């Protein structure tokens, strides 16, 4: 580990990673890696998570290819210094903001999207010209070793390294000084990462999760109700069986609509996932399975099951499950669920959902299905969350122009598209001055004339300055003790 990190520091210092051509070639190789190894990726994902090929493509490989292409086509633009206007008083001078790489960065990724959550930040880190260590999650072992074996075949080995291992490895890595740490995972580990980062004053991006609610304004949906329910079902069970930070966690609906909504959901589940609902991915590992099983074992929660609820320990499979009004102080409503269980909480009026959400930690995303524009406005201005999606699920994840990230308990910092580049860059202001036109008012000894000069200069009152210089403007006395 020591040797790898020293080598990466050395590579960064050599300056090679700063050039446009290096960054471009790395991104191109990454794109080639994805194309060449699609099948191997599918296999690893099936082994680790039981994900189907199609799910692999749409959640992992597809978005990555799109992001690499997006980065490649915008890289030059991102790298260009931004010219900024400088007040005339500083003439002659020019100012610009130059994005420079941080240096050596650490990416710690998570097991639920083991490729996307490792490589999407990598795209940003490479585009910004950093050297990188990736620490994949040990809970997706096949994917982790795929990355460790394959990345060195495509990317600059002196600049990008994969270090595999468990929590101890992570702990060891965190002892080193990094110029940026990008972490995806739970708030518990996020805190650990941040407290280690504090020792070296390392900035962190924390991509956490939280309980993403759906506000389901049934009454306003009219003919769109079928599509809305389908989208809810796909946002809950269609993304790695709910094992996604963006997945729907729970649903809020007016009490009078609970029963028709549940009927629609049941029908949709059957239609999409088959009668026995075996067609959704299994739980990633025993740990997550056991945790979810325990959530359902709480007697008060068990009583609230109105659909599904059966578990299969051997295959780590949990049926799509709907709960109606489980106790709000139960664990299923306290922690992020991260699995195929959907609690439905009923309210008298859909407006109460704002208060309900605000009384809990800020979620990564709020989903709201409604045609009521006033309600949209209120949700948008009165709640706080990483992002909001109206009338659909998950898709904001694919919009390169939107920053993706949390706020409060759901995380710090954002990425995707240009935001990924920015997350791994320091925006360095550069002011370049000429030697012409030196204004003596800047220099001591101070007097009343210089004082007046500066007052006018701050107001950018050029006419006043002219009068002052011509002796046509009076100035007071300078109070020198």
């Amino acid at each position, binding site marked *: 580990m020591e040797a790898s990190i020293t080598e990466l520091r050395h590579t960064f210092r050599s300056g090679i990673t*700063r050039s446009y051509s290096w960054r471009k070639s790395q991104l191109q190789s990454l794109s080639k890696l994805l194309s060449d190894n699609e099948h191997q990726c599918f296999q690893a994902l099936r082994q680790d998570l039981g994900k*189907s090929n*199609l*799910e692999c*493509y*749409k*959640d992992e490989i*597809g*978005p990555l290819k799109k992001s690499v*292409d997006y980065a490649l086509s915008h890289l030059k633009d991102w790298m260009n210094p931004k010219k*900024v206007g400088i007040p005339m008083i500083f003439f002659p*001078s020019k*100012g610009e*903001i130059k994005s*420079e790489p941080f*240096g050596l960065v650490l990416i710690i990724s998570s097991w639920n999207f083991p490729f996307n959550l490792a490589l999407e930040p990598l795209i940003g880190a490479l585009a910004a010209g950093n050297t990188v260590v990736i620490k994949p999650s040990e809970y997706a072992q096949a994917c982790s070793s795929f990355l460790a074996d394959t990345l060195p075949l495509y990317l600059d080995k002196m600049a990008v390294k994969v270090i595999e291992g468990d929590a101890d490895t992570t702990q060891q890595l965190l002892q080193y000084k990094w110029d940026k740490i990008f972490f995806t995972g739970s708030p518990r580990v996020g805190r650990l990462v*941040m*407290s280690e980062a*504090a020792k070296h*004053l390392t*900035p962190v991006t924390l991509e956490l999760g939280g309980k993403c609610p759906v506000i389901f304004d049934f009454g306003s949906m009219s003919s769109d109700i079928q599509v809305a329910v389908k989208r809810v079902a796909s946002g809950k069970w*269609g993304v790695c069986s709910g094992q996604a930070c963006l997945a729907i966690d729970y649903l809020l609906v007016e009490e009078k609509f609970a029963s028709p909504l549940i009927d629609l959901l049941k029908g949709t589940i059957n239609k*999409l*996932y*088959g009668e026995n609902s075996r067609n*959704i991915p299994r739980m990633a590992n025993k740990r997550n399975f056991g945790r979810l099983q325990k959530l359902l074992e709480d007697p008060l929660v068990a009583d609230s099951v109105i659909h599904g609820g059966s578990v299969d320990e051997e295959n780590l499979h949990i049926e799509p499950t709907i709960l109606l009004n489980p106790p709000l102080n139960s664990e299923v409503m306290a922690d992020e669920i991260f699995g195929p269980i959907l609690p439905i909480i009923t309210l008298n009026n859909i407006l109460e959902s704002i208060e309900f959400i*605000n009384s809990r930690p800020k979620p990564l995303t709020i989903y709201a299905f409604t045609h009521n524009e006033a309600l*949209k406005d209120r949700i948008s*201005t009165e709640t706080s*969350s*990483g*992002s909001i999606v109206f009338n*659909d*699920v998950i*898709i904001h994840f*694919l*919009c390169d*122009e*939107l*920053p*993706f990230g949390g*706020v*409060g308990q759901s995380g*710090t*910092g954002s990425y995707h598209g240009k935001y990924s580049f920015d997350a791994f860059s320091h*925006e*360095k*202001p*550069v*002011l*370049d001055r000429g*030697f012409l036109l*030196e204004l003596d008012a*800047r220099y*001591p*000894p101070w007097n009343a004339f210089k004082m007046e000069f500066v*007052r006018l200069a*701050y107001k950018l009152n050029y006419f006043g300055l002219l009068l002052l210089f011509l002796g046509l403007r009076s100035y007071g006395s*300078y*109070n020198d003790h």
Partner: protein
Amino acid sequence: MASNKFDVEATTLMVEELRGTFNAGKTRSYEWRVAQLKGIIKMMDDREQEIIEALRLDLGKPEFESAVYEIGMLKSSCARALKELKHWMMPEKVKSSIVAFPSSAEIVSEPLGAVLIISAWNYPILLSLDPIVGAVAAGNVAVLKPSEIAPASSSLLAKYVPEYLDSSAIRVVEGGVPETTALLDQKWDKIFYTGNGRVGRIVMAAAVKHLTPVVLELGGKSPVIVDSDVNLKVAVKRIIAGKWGLNNGQACISADYIITTKDFVPKLVDSLKHQLEKFYGINPLESKDLSRIVNSNHFDRLTKLLDEEKVSSKIIHGGQSDRAQLKIAPTILLDVPEDSLIMSEEIFGPLLPILTVDRLEESFDFIRSRSKPLAAYLFTNRKKLKDEFVRTISAGGIAINDIALHLVVPSLPYGGVGESGMGSYHGKFSFDVFSHKKSVLYRSFVADAPARYPPYSQGKLRLLKALVVGSVLAVISALIGLPEHFGSKDKSA
């Protein structure tokens, strides 16, 4: 202030009250924000003489410096925010990619909530209220903890902030370590700290508990590289203004040390001496145009730097001090050893070491081998040297042929990197640093492709793969509709 007892319970209660104000939505309106910004300007106008007096008491700061760097900068910061605020607050429309068609997307700037601002003693008014400008412009409630090391300024802020700003949303808490600890124990939505790296680490570690994002405005040893081809007179004036003219070197962006060539150094030193005398007279300890050292701790720290055996013999100008008046004369040292104390820590005072090299390019490696400074300065007319400096030197900010001036340009972000800090502010960056950029995507129900829902067939995967060859965007538009699993049917694929 010791008399201002501030316990944990009172802190908790105060934060609860502030959160109540925030939750009521009061601070979100454009009108409220404008009123606060105008309040700050009014406070500066009404209380200008009192502020100048407080700064004189705390730091012996010359009126000119107070008027320029504290009051003037603050007012221009408010004026800029007032002018631009409406624009800053507007949601930013973005292209929502074809995958989400038909839809619209925007990025909304929303206030973070309750923010804590801990400021420093060297620019006690500016460094307290300039972050407040950003915090209120972004619609937050805030607590300000001014530095106890500048007590007159601290009590002035405690007295007037409630008078000119909405006291249900902005509070000043005076005090030292116990008060700061009690404040850091609360849950904040952002902590904005200006000071040193040691306390910066404590602040960031305390922020971990509630996963609070932090801005750390720290310092570091900001180098000045001087080439031999410059307009010497102008360069020297600017160096003096950027060293002793900034609170007598007690500024995080002031020049810390100079590197120049062996050949050029005699000319540079002569010119510095000459110009220093013109600015501050024969006896600079008597000059009214220089701040004093803030307190005896810092005075002792600085004289200790000079007293180090291998350093004291290197003094080539100045070196006089007067502990009773806390004054140290502008002091220049030549070729101090690199492992001396004065070259290891941030000087933060009127001492200026000059290092010499054979070729100026050697200085770049020297700078790179040390912690990233808050600012790096280069005086040269050589384009190639400038380009290399900008390209290879990492620092919070860079100014070529001037010192500290980038701080005054509101279109440039101001902040550190690495040891010199994280996060930036000034102008729009102040607004952004106290805002959360919330993505909002509006989707419609038109054109919902049936293909996006399972159960899937093997043919659909083949379709996707065919699309890859065509265009990635087209692929994604197909992909997005397919968030479901592929199931056993594709096992053979």
